[in-house]
């Protein structure tokens, strides 16, 4: 089995995550789409690390995980505080700056 299969899977997961961000209106699901994209890039990193015999890829994937955890904490806090004031978790309802 060629190792580029992992890369194809990673590309598929990444585009599914991107489509989720573009298509869904629920802020939490949009956020999970971002998480899916980060995980797909992690899979590519780990695959490349194995392909090149270099552990730097795994370390970068580790950093991506840490940054994703921080991002989740802040993003979910923003979603919760928006939900407190606007009673909605939809990305369409956050339009105070529109008019």
């Amino acid at each position, binding site marked *: *089995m*060629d*190792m*580029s*299969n*992992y890369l*194809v*899977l990673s*590309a*598929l*997961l*990444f*585009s*599914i*995550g*991107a*489509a989720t961000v*573009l*298509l*869904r209106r*629920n802020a*939490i*699901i949009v*956020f*999970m789409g971002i*998480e*899916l994209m980060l*995980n797909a890039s*992690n*899979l590519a990193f*780990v695959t490349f*690390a*194995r*392909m*090149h*015999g270099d*552990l*730097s890829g*795994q*370390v970068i*994937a*580790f*950093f991506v*995980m*840490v*940054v994703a*955890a*921080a*991002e*989740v*904490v*802040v993003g*979910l*806090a923003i*979603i*919760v505080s928006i*939900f407190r004031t606007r009673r909605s*978790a*939809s990305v*369409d309802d956050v339009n105070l700056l529109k008019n």
Partner: protein
Amino acid sequence: MTSGAEAVLFWCLAPLMVIAALGLLFARKAVHATLCVVFVMVCLAVMYVALEAPFLGIVQIVVYTGAVMMLFLFVIMLVGVDASDSLVETIRGQRLVGWLLGIGLGAVLVGVILRVSFPAGIGLEEANADTNPVAIARVLFGDFVFNLEVVGVLLITAALAALTLTHKQRLTPRVGQKERADARVASGESLVPLPAPGVYAQRNAMDVPALDPQGRPIEASVSRVLRVRGQERQAPLDAQIAHLSGQGPRGVGSGPSHDVDRTDGPGEPTADPSTPGAADTTPPRTTEEES
């Protein structure tokens, strides 16, 4: 390079992962989407272990499925499970463009990857000679130590940001049980619970108001819903009380009225055709006599 067992593992997991990821795209409820993503994360951890990165596999399980996705479930519980998607397009044609961009991105990425000829993989046997975590630690604290410090600062900042974002400052003093009781006494409301309907009346049905010591009906004893609907009935007034007080019966209901001036004994149930369920509530005295 890659063994046959790994190929079997990959071809078992990869379609399931893609299907679960599509579940994120198509699931109606946010909880189902979250569970789909949890499945993808667990499968990714298995793939990391197969890709000679056992440390990252464990971290993936602990951080993603253990912490991040449970945090997602927690927030869904806070926000409300029924917070569903609206199907209204706020930007015209946005759905179509989204589909085009998503499919186009996937096609471009997969096409590029399939056209590139990658070199035969080297593998990590040499790099992982002292077990994977030890080797990762050497790289992490050797080449990437400054990045690690910056990431530590980032984590602390994120924790502080989450604290300040979700912190709710109390602008008014807390209203506890004592404050509520004081306010009730100060406002002069009734301190005790409202009387139940039918108390001291000759029937204890829900739609008959209770009687006060003067034999007059208490309007507040009947449910507000029944009063608004006009389904309240007048309490049958005792003849002696009516004679003593010298005033007519004061019914409060505007519903189906029946004879309030009846002077016969309490044992006879009043037949009311409009509310048959409430008409057969005879006082307990009658049942004792009959039995």
